[in-house]
């Protein structure tokens, strides 16, 4: 990644550093933790200040709060069925934690905590453990018939069951890698093209003019990244709903 002396430090932005000065240093409170707290505070603030006016005709903030509440509730009931209401708080929390992480990462000087596989895998592992516990709770040992579709020949059981188990276990991996890879790739691209702007601008008059190209690209990429931020949070939440549907209804 080096370009004769000057290096494009695309991955440095994901490095953890202690936040909040000496207190944070003492307890290893990093900027990722800080932005998780900010995300939580923003979500609670959105709902609290959005719900406070209690207007019949909602203002902007109230409309946003109501839209997000009703949108996620609808996603739960559409995907999981009537039982989905029970999982609404979980899906809502998950969606907003991921969404706020993605969106906060778009702000200058902010840190994208969803760009760490440790964070996304922890979320995905939580989802898969919950899904399995829900399935076991509702269906008991009948849950294990999930790994052998009825109607398949019994002779193929030694082949189908391991494949289905691996497929089931690969869900949290693909769920976490998708979110993490999207966030990392987007931020690396932004950083690389932003560095191009600086490097070209430092290379004389022609370079200053040429640097408009990566700058224009970065403007487009920023818009694209906002799309990805929403989309990945949505995908994470809806895949959680789909897995919960499988757990509740089995097949």
């Amino acid at each position, binding site marked *: 990644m080096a370009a004769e002396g000057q290096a494009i430090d695309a991955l440095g932005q994901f490095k953890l550093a202690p936040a909040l000065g000496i207190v944070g240093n003492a307890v290893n409170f990093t900027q990722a933790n800080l932005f998780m707290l900010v995300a939580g505070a923003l979500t609670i603030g959105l709902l609290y200040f959005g719900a406070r006016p209690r207007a019949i005709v909602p203002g902007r903030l109230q409309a946003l709060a109501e839209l997000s509440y009703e949108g996620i509730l*609808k*996603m739960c*009931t*559409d*995907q*999981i*069925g*009537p039982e989905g209401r029970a999982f609404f708080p979980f899906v809502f929390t998950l969606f907003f934690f991921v969404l706020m992480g993605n969106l906060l990462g778009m702000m200058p000087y902010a840190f994208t905590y969803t760009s760490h596989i440790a964070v996304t895998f922890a979320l995905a592992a939580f989802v898969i453990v919950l899904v399995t516990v829900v399935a076991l709770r509702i269906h008991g040992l009948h849950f294990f018939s999930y790994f052998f579709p009825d109607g398949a020949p019994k002779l193929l059981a030694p*082949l189908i069951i*391991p*494949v*289905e188990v*691996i*497929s089931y*276990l*690969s869900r949290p*991996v*693909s769920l976490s*890698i*998708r979110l993490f*890879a*999207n966030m990392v*790739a*987007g931020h690396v691209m932004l950083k690389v093209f932003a560095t191009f702007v600086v490097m070209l601008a430092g290379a004389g008059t022609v370079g200053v003019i040429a640097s408009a190209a990566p700058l224009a690209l970065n403007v487009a990429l920023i818009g694209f990244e906002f*799309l*990805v931020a929403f*989309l*990945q949070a*949505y*995908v994470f939440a*809806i*895949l959680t*709903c*789909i897995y919960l*549907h*499988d757990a509740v*209804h089995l*097949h």
Partner: protein
Amino acid sequence: MSEERDGGDRPHSAPPGGSSGGSFEDRLGAARRKQGLEPPRQGEDGASPIPSLSPSQGNAMGVGLRVGVELVSALAVAVAIGWYLDGWLGTRPFLLMLFVVLGGAAGVANVWRLVGPPKPPRR
């Protein structure tokens, strides 16, 4: 690179009761057709080779990334299981070899679940 949607997982995710008149995608599609935003659906049974990945479900790159992630994650899980079982049972290369094959099969199964035809309703 990232416009992947939840498209492929939809077919087996629609609520079986179907109380609210079809899934969100169906109603959105109907509303979009009414507004003339999409060409009318040709053939209700989906004559295209990958029916669950309709044109509105993001571009080819998103689908490709999605498929890649599914394949690689299944293989990674299988390799991890094989490696761990080998270390435990002392059969160093053999279970790993077996699980690499099984992991590839599971990856293909994942992809088929993503792009294959929707499951028929059971019972």
